[in-house]
């Protein structure tokens, strides 16, 4: 097996153009598991950890650009205030060791329906930046995922960054797993309030072949908040609205029965997660304090 370690993006893209069968490796927390389990025998690995520009994040006005190879630990440490949803999701990934190595680029590259950052990227209307020797393009997060572990990435492309707006309102991420740390999502949910656009973002993970936007739930809630003037009044959300939101989120999913949980449980749990996390987000919006915590 070949091992290439380019130090610039241009070099990496050239290598990928020449040999699209090279498998990129960033933190290696998915790639190495696949190799160990013998699920994959790539002819070569393209190590991205030598490329400084992929491991940086930057702010351009209100938009943050997070390099594909920025590890979760840095997102938690540096971006918790501006990208709270992404930081919360990052905090739930694996263990400290995994968060020191694992990256959003890798999460996207694997495109597992259970990846924790996906619902956050969709709810936050993130854009995935990809590049190849042919040029660069931007893919809206909810168009990136095509199927179980399949994405819109072309064989000669690399993910370079995700771009998303700094939070203008509260964000929450919650996932259900059957132990209290280091667990793969049985199902997960992200919600972002965008008061300046009078919009709500909501997405589910691990409950369909791909992470998925809960469009009906988004529209329902955005409309309710706007028509009742709640964005400005910041009054408590009616229980019925929270419940309906939960139901619509659950309806967005098309889960399966597997060894991690039943389809019925996933649907049920999503409704609960959506209702609760909306409640936390709304309390924060109403000035009830920060619902993000240790």
């Amino acid at each position, binding site marked *: 097996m070949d091992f290439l370690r380019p130090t610039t993006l241009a070099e990496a893209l050239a290598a990928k153009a020449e040999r699209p069968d090279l498998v990129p490796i960033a933190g290696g927390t998915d790639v190495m598991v696949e190799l160990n389990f013998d699920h994959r025998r790539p002819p070569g690995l393209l190590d991205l950890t030598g490329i400084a520009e992929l491991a940086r994040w930057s702010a351009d006005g209100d938009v943050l650009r997070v390099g594909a190879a920025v590890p979760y630990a840095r997102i938690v440490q540096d971006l918790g205030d501006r990208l709270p949803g992404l930081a919360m999701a990052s905090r739930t990934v694996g263990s400290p060791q995994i968060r020191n190595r694992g990256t959003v680029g890798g999460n996207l590259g694997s495109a597992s329906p259970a990846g924790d950052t996906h619902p956050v990227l969709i709810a936050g209307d993130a854009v995935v930046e990809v590049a190849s020797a042919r040029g660069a393009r931007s893919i809206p997060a909810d168009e990136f995922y095509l199927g179980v572990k399949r994405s819109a990435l072309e064989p000669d492309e690399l993910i370079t960054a995700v771009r998303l707006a700094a939070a203008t309102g509260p964000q929450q991420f919650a996932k*259900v797993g059957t132990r209290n740390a280091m667990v793969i999502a049985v199902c997960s949910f992200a919600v972002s309030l965008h008061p300046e656009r009078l919009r709500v973002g909501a997405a589910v993970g691990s409950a369909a072949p791909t992470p998925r936007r809960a469009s009906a739930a988004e529209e329902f809630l955005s409309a309710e908040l706007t028509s009742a003037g709640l964005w400005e009044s910041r009054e408590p959300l009616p229980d019925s609205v929270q419940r309906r939101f939960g139901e619509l989120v659950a309806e967005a999913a098309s889960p399966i029965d597997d060894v991690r949980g039943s389809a019925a449980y996933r649907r049920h749990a999503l409704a609960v997660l959506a209702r609760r996390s909306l409640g936390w987000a709304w309390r924060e919006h109403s000035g009830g304090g920060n619902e993000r915590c240790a």
Partner: protein
Amino acid sequence: MSQPVRTPTDLTSAVAGGVGESPQRPDGNLKVRGEFAYSSDLWHEDMIWGATLRSPHPHARITGVDLTEALKVPGVHAVLTHADVPGANACGVEQRDQPVLAVDVVRYQGEPVALVGADHPETARRAMERIVVDYEVLEPVVDAEAAARGECAPLHASGNVVRHVPVRRGDQSATAEVVVTGRYEVGMQDQAFLGPESGLAVPAEDGGVDLYVATQWLHVDQDQVASALGLPLEKVRLALSGVGGAFGGREDLSMQVHACMLALHTRKPVKMVYNREESFYGHVHRHPAVLHYEHGADRDGKLVYVRAKIYLDGGAYASSTAAVVANAATLGIGPYDVDNVTVDCWGVYTNNPPCGAMRGFGAVQAGFAYESQMDRLAGVLGLDPVEVRLRNAVREGSTMPTGQVIDSAAPVAELLELVRDRPLPAATGGELDLRQMPGGVSNTTHGEGVVRGVGYAVGIKNICFSEGHDDYSTARVRLEVVGGEAAALVQTAACEVGQGLVTVVQQIVRTELGVQRVSVLPMDTSIGNAGSSSASRQTYVTGGAVKSACAAVRARVLELYSRQTGTGPAEVGRLGAELRGGKLVSSHDVLADLADVLGGDAVDETAEWRHRPTEPIDPETGQGNAHVQFGFAAHRAVVDVDVELGLVKVVALDCAQDVGRALNPQAVLGQIQGGSAQGLGLAVMEEIRTKDGKVRNPSFTDYLIPTVLDVPPMGVDVLERADPHAPYGLRGVGEPPTISSTPAIVAAIRAATGLPLTRVPVRPEHITGT
């Protein structure tokens, strides 16, 4: 041939302290720093790698095996099948019913079919892909109850019942005012040790083989390996390598014979290491169980009778099923005094993964059921769950359902009172800390849906081997002057599997011989059998052997003294001479310096030591003094349950246990904490899930074990009620806490949810009903 490198010599380095102290274990720092040499780290110049081709089917006939293409792969040294097994193609820890390599039928998914020896693991993998095995797939037998009733095609010539143990005591048709019944299920738990099966076989000049391996019992391995290789015992020498956990999962053979076959065939050292997935197929698991119980009591909650039918799924081969059945049957009603008992326990063959020894060994499965029943009874009578247990608890002098009278301390009531009377943890509140919440850092609740529950349980376990087994250990102790100071050397074949035996053994020698310098020889088969590091027995039995060898050494030293000084043996006896602080002392005087008495002589004694004999049980009635000692532990669990999501946070898990005498209090605590954590795993997450005989989660991605955020603080009360029959009065400590932990946690979840919860592990769906 030269020695392998990366053998765990550091295990045998000296520690300080005598019996009752808690010296730091020699392997502790190394393990924490990642520097300890495990069996998977073994290395030998010139070695090749062995790999195992396994059956993908739970049940199939093998209609053909073609090795041609595999043998052509460059770098392949050998491809072997059952035809190459030099001796008996049969192994098994109790019954030799399992082939070393499958012949014409495979009985479980993962059963070894062929072996490859190659210059690199990757070469071996490629060669394995080129072995063609033709299978005619057969219907798997997967229902243990149906197998017990004889409704399935027999998987072995003897039929599908490995063993049926009935226990009959008192009036078989007793009736009672209050009756509670229940059907309970226990899922298949895995030992989940972190060090995969591995070892190194080195062919020897004499035509024999030296095997370096992680195991629990060197001599039972040696026996089976020699028989499979067709070699006399002395040509098959085993040495213990670094063991990365065992919990029962290393009592059966895994790669031992395979590596030796390849080594003898290729005349090269052969290393084998399972990967994590293979490890799930490479060792036995805890028997899953279905248990039907009926408890009859009077209005005061005093038990009148207990009836139970217990079905244990042994999977494809017997392993230790027969002994597990006996435990579940004889301990099947728990530590309760009941006059009328009818228990039937069956262990059966199916095409599920083979099951055998795991910490708690049959007592765990029964414990979940009888403790659930006690809570039901308390519920029906409106009694406090501790109270109903206190009213029925056995004590010293009580009679077990087998007719055996408990003849040492049985402070069951006191253990329950100890956990009951501990202060309860404060309610979760104040500033939100997700780590304290059900769901943990995954951010599923900030308090919504969270209900607290408290539950209790107590359990009983037999310590040491039972049913008339000749249970003994062998120890050698040598005392001589080294550098002007008396120093001792101790040797046994007892496996250090992480429990801290090498530390305890040194403590015993230091205490018995009054010397500071004690070293331990590596554990191997050059000395006699020590029995298994299982059944909570090793400190008892090997500790007893070491103590006995020390006594023999002391007697020899006194003889020397007697001869040197002309003091008659009777006089020496009257002086009450002892060895202490490097001296020979009487009750009031220093008689001599030990170094002077020894001079240039070495005193070297080997002792074989047995605990008092036990009896077989009557096959019709289960009556007999089958057990040598009983261990008891009680737990109180406090849980927070998110009743809407079905997620559980165990908030506190307090334990009280009688250990007779804590030879090493720190190690005792470690056993209680570890055992409790393993019981927690079974309560809320750990299960090998199978479908039609196939394992669905052979990885730590989906076989979940508790993390530090799942295991709560534990308040532990250790009682020391000496057992006069045991060395130092000790009582085996490793297993009892695993038994009561699980039912206590489930009782607490029931208290929080009001649900019956009759199956472990409890999954979120069981709580939410979705």
